[in-house]
């Protein structure tokens, strides 16, 4: 435990269990994102799919929270509800005190695919948001140029998206979302489509970026390593219908880098997460067995 001696402030166990379902109103009065008893149901040809099942959670200003769970468990749907892209079937989502019924420019989103406007250069893609919000062209382009420098794509400012690699495109997508200076940044498996090497670089970039921007981040992934490396808190979701199983605080020191992935304290935390997920997975599997 050499690392620990360098940091006497670190608590003995990095893992701290918090109530799976935080008390909505009294316990966390100053939360920026508040999800209360949220259910989302989709009509499908053969009935209904419950994508999100009575989920409650709260995110504090400045926090970096990850949502982890098997695919199909409702992570994207939950995130879309925070973005105002999906309406609650029951319950409520509020961001900065206002209920989310439609997308809002103070909430940015990065999707798994970059979804850049193919007809716009990198610079104009990033300037799109500020322009849409009524900023002058000069002002919007100035914002874009600053962000382009920040993501290290200065040489590619006038390139069109299809000429860039996947990792570069995703960096542009992140910059584009940041151009409106959102208070909340939602990221839906943003590195999920990238190869392992690029993904590691992107994770380090995001950690650096986070120190410079002033946003609350909710990050969806099914990669435990990624979740622990990046987050202050990891929410583990059950296999569908999505509910929040556990709320884990990651008390590892910052600044972090991918070097942390071999830290014993980190490994202990990861083992706990994996155990939880494995038990849950088995439960889901047995349920399915029982049904069939």
């Amino acid at each position: 435990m050499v690392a620990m001696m360098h940091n006497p402030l670190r608590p003995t166990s990095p893992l701290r269990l918090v109530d799976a379902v935080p008390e909505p109103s009294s316990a966390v009065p100053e939360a920026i994102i508040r999800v209360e008893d949220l259910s989302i149901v989709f009509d499908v040809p053969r009935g209904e799919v419950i994508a999100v099942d009575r989920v409650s959670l709260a995110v504090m200003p400045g926090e970096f929270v990850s949502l982890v769970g098997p695919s199909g468990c409702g992570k994207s749907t939950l995130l879309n509800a925070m973005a105002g892209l999906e309406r609650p079937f029951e319950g409520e989502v509020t961001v900065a005190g206002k209920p989310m019924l439609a997308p809002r420019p103070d909430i940015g989103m990065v999707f798994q695919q970059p979804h850049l406007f193919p007809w716009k250069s990198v610079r104009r893609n990033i300037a799109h948001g500020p322009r849409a919000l009524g900023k002058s062209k000069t002002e919007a382009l100035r914002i874009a140029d600053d962000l382009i420098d920040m993501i290290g794509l200065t040489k590619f400012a006038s390139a069109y998206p299809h000429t860039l690699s996947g990792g570069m495109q995703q960096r542009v997508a992140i910059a584009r979302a940041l151009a409106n200076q959102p208070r909340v940044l939602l990221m839906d498996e943003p590195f999920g489509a990238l190869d392992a090497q690029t993904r590691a670089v992107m994770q380090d970039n995001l950690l650096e970026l986070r120190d410079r921007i002033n946003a609350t981040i909710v990050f969806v992934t099914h990669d435990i390593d990624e979740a622990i490396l990046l987050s202050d808190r990891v929410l583990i979701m059950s296999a569908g219908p999505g509910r929040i199983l556990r709320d884990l605080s990651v008390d590892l020191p910052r600044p972090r880098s991918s070097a942390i992935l071999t830290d014993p304290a980190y490994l202990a935390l990861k083992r706990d997460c994996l155990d939880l997920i494995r038990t849950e997975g088995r439960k889901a599997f047995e349920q399915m067995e029982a049904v069939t």
Partner: protein
Amino acid sequence: MSTGGHNRATMAGRLSVLVGALSVPAFVGVWELIARSRIVNAVLFPPPSTVAVAVLDWIHSGQFFGDLSASLFRVTVGFLIGTTGGIMLGVLTGRFRLLSSLLSPLFHILRPIPPIAFVPIVILWFGLSEAGKLFLVVWGVFFTVWLATHIGVQKVDRGLIRAALMLGTPRRQMLSEIILLGALPYIVVGLRTAVSISFYTLVAAELAGAFAGIVYRIEIAQQNMQTGQVMGGLAALGLLSFVADRSFAAIAERAVWWR
């Protein structure tokens, strides 16, 4: 061995270029020979030289430019009105379900009726006025462009729309930029088809009765048994639609500028 193969390939390439360059002159030459050899009736099949003289007369008489501008006016104005309407309605029906339910069934019923079949009713409605001719071209062009746009709009990447929504894109800009440009590759294909449709509806419009126009001139020449003039008119029409198609292809290539 490889150089031999290479030489053979370049020789074959040169030969095909040469044959290509000679194709039209050879055809004209053979036609001239046959027409002059009295194998065929020279009144019905005039030699190219006679056609050339007829065309020169046409130009000298001052009628050619009047005919050309009358036809060009009908084709371009009809094309512009029909495609603008088709694109606008295509964006709307592609984007708004209710509007699509209202209009799409109607359009799908009207679309397969060949525009030429509307000539009689157009004459009743518009007489021999320019409006009637424009109507036929507009009608012919509209449905093709509408359908291409409608389909294109529905194929616009939903992720792109969501990204634009998240960035605060206003409704208007969503339609005029994200949806329109997202559908542009499809629209361009529809427009290219519309170019040839506009020419064939032009033919119907001028045959139905006009006072000027290339096809009108062909019809008048036919009534006077001026077969040279008829063929000269056909050649002019062919050249015109060929140039229109080629220039549109060149424009279309640049229209989707980000590719």
